[in-house]
């Protein structure tokens, strides 16, 4: 798990510097926000000329799922006070995923999976964010090193495993087309936020 997290963290660090964030701002995002997709979205929107508001809205919409993970983890972890703050901060795709996959082996195994994964990912993610940020500061033109292609590739890598059936594939293609259609007409960042409405339409119309 450490190697993919490390690569991805380094890519985030480098992409954030290329988008105009300082090393400190880049590291604060990994320390305080700590959710890969949201972090990439914040620097991506700012890097393409979007406002702070658009960046915050996109990052927050992507962060909403962590709240639902928390809802799922709360009865398992039963945390109070400061431990709940730490547990909440470590509630991301990876830690929740491992905890759920361990549930069959009992609550203790699931709890151990959550903490071990959360702490491990937090450590490597932040370490490699710093290394990536420092590395990107040392090179000149990001495009000459392919850094400008790393960001869309990172998003594609996060998207790919979610495309499990025709409905999700159609939604993905519609969202990409809608965003590209809107780009010339509305301020940067808005085309991305607008596609969340597509998800609401797709999600509420299903009858199962």
């Amino acid at each position, binding site marked *: 798990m450490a190697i*993919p997290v490390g690569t*991805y963290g380094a890519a985030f660090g480098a992409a954030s510097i290329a988008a105009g964030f*300082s090393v400190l*701002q880049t590291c604060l*995002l990994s320390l305080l*926000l*700590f959710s890969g*997709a*949201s972090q*990439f979205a*914040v620097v991506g*929107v700012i890097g*393409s000329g979007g406002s*702070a508001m658009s960046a*915050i809205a996109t*990052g*927050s*919409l*992507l*962060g*909403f*799922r*962590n*709240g639902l993970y*928390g*809802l*799922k*983890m*709360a009865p398992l972890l039963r*945390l109070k006070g400061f431990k*709940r703050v730490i547990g*909440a*901060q470590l509630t991301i795709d990876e830690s929740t995923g491992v905890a759920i996959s361990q549930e069959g082996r009992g609550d203790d195994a699931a709890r151990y999976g959550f903490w071990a994964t959360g702490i491990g990912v937090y450590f490597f993610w932040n370490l490699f964010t710093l290394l990536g940020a420092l590395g990107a500061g040392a090179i000149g033109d990001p495009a000459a090193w*392919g850094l*400008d*292609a*790393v960001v*869309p*590739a*990172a*998003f594609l*890598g*996060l998207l*790919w495993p*979610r*495309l499990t059936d025709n409905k999700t594939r159609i939604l*993905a293609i519609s*969202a990409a*087309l*809608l965003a*590209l259609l809107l*780009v*010339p007409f509305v301020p940067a960042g808005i*085309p991305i936020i607008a*596609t*969340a409405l*597509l998800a609401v339409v*797709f*999600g509420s119309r*299903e009858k199962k």
Partner: protein
Amino acid sequence: MSQIWIATLISSLICFLLKYLGYRIPESLLNRPAIQRINSLIPIALLSSLVAVQALTIKQQVVIDHRLVGLLVAAIALSFKANFPIMMLLAAASSALVYNL
């Protein structure tokens, strides 16, 4: 304060509060099937539009350039079940190659 500082600190705060709220609100509030479905679809819509905008636009124009090559290589790598580091490396290398041609 600059736009970048505002984006950094406010999105960090909101994303943390979203995580924390999950531990504080009663489960019944959000445990409706439609909410669960929409929650799993929102990342798909946002990630897909982010792919498109990051790979195919500059400022407010749709542009086809070296980044698209990197993205296509990434898609091929993913369809062959390449792992994350390999996929990113191939995308960067192919895009840089076309850029430097």
